[in-house]
């Protein structure tokens, strides 16, 4: 996928999915081409952290220190997957 593809799909995704969901799908599919286990882990971690983020922003309940710690760990795990697979 080159820059023009990314730009055109990204623009259309704003109307369809939103950029967050679009990039999650793209990374999941990209990882799955060479490491299915990493793709599944990425999917699960990003889904969990998204759920915590929605809870923190929109629920009436508070996110406690335990859940905050969990979110921090999930973010670290996601970054590790991206570093290992894309060298970023």
């Amino acid at each position, binding site marked *: 996928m080159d820059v023009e593809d990314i730009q055109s799909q990204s623009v259309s995704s704003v109307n369809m999915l939103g950029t967050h969901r679009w990039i999650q799908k793209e990374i999941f599919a990209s990882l799955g081409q060479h490491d299915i286990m990493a793709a*599944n882990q990425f*999917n*699960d971690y990003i889904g969990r952290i998204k759920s915590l983020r929605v809870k923190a922003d929109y629920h009436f309940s508070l996110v406690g220190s335990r859940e905050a710690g969990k979110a921090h760990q999930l973010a670290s795990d996601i970054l590790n997957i991206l570093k290992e697979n894309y060298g970023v």
Partner: protein
Amino acid sequence: MESKAWLKDKLANLATEIDGVEFKYGYDKLSETHFVSVAPSGLLTSDERFNSLRFDLLHDFYNLYASESVVFLPVEEAEEFSDYEEVICRSQTIDSYLDWLNASSIVESEVKLSSGSQESAAREGNYAIAA
């Protein structure tokens, strides 16, 4: 087909492919996330076939329901993220084992009953019954 029904149907199919697996299902409406609790949790990290099949399931799901998410969780951590319905599907192996276990316990109790009858008959000197 509604995404929940689609996913549950696919999970039921997946349970027929993987020995000993048990799934529970939960849904968070606000984040549009489907949670699937998996037992035994080792399947998530060490079973290549299970991971290949669930990757295909996720890939198909996102092609149909792009705005929603599906998250598989080890059973030990599942309660932190959602409430769950009862077990929605488990592999035939577990069902067969539970059937066997139930049948075994019935036979065992019958043997004990029979054995007890023999002992009491012997105590009473009725050796014909005891035999």
